[in-house]
């Protein structure tokens, strides 16, 4: 599968990766369990991602991709190692500061969409704004509406997730990820639960987000999906074993 590239001139990885790193991991370890059940999900991982990059993290099932994304997204903390996000040492931050990072600097897109079933599309997209402290309900609704319009769901504002197709649900999730205008979009198998044409729509949206200046980190085991990115990071048994510039 060769997807069309949404890059505009001057946005190629070779020029953009010269900027200072936005994300910098140094010998990150993540260990689950204890004793005989110990799993070293990440082992001494070093990784740098520059502002504005489009990176695909690929690898077999169980290799540690999701674990890596959880640490990148501050959803989990590394067992050891150093993580600098835009110069801030994440290990030193308290709960409120980590929540603020998840809220304002990172937008998540999950394989299972993770929408709240009882809320309308618009209310789902409003959630991060509520935690961002946007007090005016009118402003929250307006920003949620324009985010949904930007993913082509301007006519589905009041539908609940159960009344939307899988692709539409994932588009709501993307609207939710971009509504606080974060610098980084983290997508874990965003097309894993979708059929081919819906999957292409979602990838086109991610391409657009990158084209408008966001750093996009995409986790996938599908080479066709990975081909959208400008850089590939291969994870195997908890190690980052190769980094190749795909074009």
């Amino acid at each position: 599968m060769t997807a069309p590239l949404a890059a505009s001139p001057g946005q190629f990885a070779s020029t953009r990766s010269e900027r200072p790193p936005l994300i910098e991991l140094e010998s990150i370890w993540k260990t689950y369990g204890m004793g005989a059940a110990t799993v070293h999900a990440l082992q001494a991982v070093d990784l740098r991602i520059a502002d504005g990059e489009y990176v695909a993290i690929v690898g077999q099932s169980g290799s540690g991709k999701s674990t890596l994304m959880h640490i990148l997204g501050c959803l989990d903390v590394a067992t050891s190692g150093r993580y600098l996000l835009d110069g801030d040492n994440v290990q030193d931050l308290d709960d409120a500061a980590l929540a603020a990072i998840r809220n304002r600097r990172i937008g998540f897109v999950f394989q299972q969409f993770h929408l709240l079933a009882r809320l309308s599309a618009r209310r789902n997209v409003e959630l991060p704004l509520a935690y961002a402290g946007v007090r005016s309900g009118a402003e929250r609704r307006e920003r949620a509406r324009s985010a949904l319009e930007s993913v082509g769901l301007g006519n589905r504002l009041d539908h609940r997730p159960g009344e939307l197709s899988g692709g539409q649900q994932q588009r709501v999730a993307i609207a939710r990820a971009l509504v606080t205008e974060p610098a980084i979009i983290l997508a874990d198998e965003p097309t894993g639960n979708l059929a081919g044409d819906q999957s292409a729509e979602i990838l086109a949206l991610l391409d657009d987000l990158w084209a408008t200046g966001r750093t996009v980190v995409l986790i996938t085991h599908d080479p066709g999906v990975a081909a959208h990115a400008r850089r590939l990071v291969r994870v195997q048994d908890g190690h980052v074993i190769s980094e190749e510039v795909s074009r």
Partner: protein
Amino acid sequence: MNLLGSLQTAVESLIERRLRTALTTLGILIGIAAVILTVGLGEGAQARVTSAIDSLGTNLLVISPGSATTGPVRGALGSAATLTLADATALGSKLDCPDIAAVAPVLQSSQTLTAGPNNWTAPVIGSTASYLAVRNRQVVLGTGITSAQVNSDAHVALVGTEVAASLFPGTSPAGQITDIAGVPFTVIGELNPAGSSANTNLDNLVIIPISTSEELFGKTGPFANTLSGIFVSSTSSSTMGAAYDEATSLLLQLHHISRPSLADFTITPQTSLLSTASTVTHSLTILLAGVAAIALLVGGIGAMNIMLVSVTERVPEIGLRKALGATRIAILQQFLLEAGLIGLTGGVLGVGLGLVGIAVLPHLLGTSLIASSLAIVGSLIVATAIGLVFGVYPAMRAARLSPMVALHSE
């Protein structure tokens, strides 16, 4: 997220789980209603006891012949006839007993009364003009006994409502003639209805001048001119203690008794009746309230159980909210608000049910209940606090979850 946003989220999730919310609320509701009702019952009983004892007379001291600690030797001396009119007169002296307001000597016996075809047996009390004031009674029809009537051994009588109804059914007793033990008396008035109190029927009595009573029904022989008892009222409720002491030392002196432990009379302050009776009802109230508190505790534990289930069930939602930027405080706030709302709703409805019960139960049971504003405000606070206290643990568990673990726990 601000408080208003958390409140909206909390209300929405409570409404979404209607049945569960209703059942949890019910547990607290029943507990609170039980507290309101038992406290109401207790206060009702307390009020009944207080008013019954008040009806005995205000600031009353009852002086009766004989000792409360009568031993075999002193009983043989016939200590049951030791009070005299002279004692009563001395007690009335403002000089010796400044804290005694009024004194009413009493000579009481049971007599048969007849009026036309009707006859009736009632206690006949010989006393003075101060009797009504000391015993807190009023004349509702006619007039009371005057000092002049006492001085002239007048054959006049005041009757209780029960006596009046039995002797003069359907007519006013005032001005009628009744024979007491065969001697004709003019009924000059009827007393206010007072019900019964401390095993005494306050409506079945006849009052006549004490002089007349001594002449017709007085004791003879060694106990001549002795009284059945003396009622004394103090100047105010705060001087009852002083009045008690003054009466005791005066009577000891008059009876030539040196040691108070050998006293041949007993003084019982009305407050001691009151405190005994209210102690009993008070402990009853505490017992009932304890049972109600256990009901409330069970309701609270039920609420915690539901909150825990609710947290467990919503772990993925909590994880998502944290991934979207919810802080620990925001999650804690949301779950505490849910728990607090359940408590408050249960409290409000429980108070409502309790008040309905207080309005309806007296008609079914014939007992009076009193709505205590302290119990109402208190149980609203307690209900909300229960919601919060029993919600804290589940809420803390929810708030502490790692967003990653929570998200992937489906």
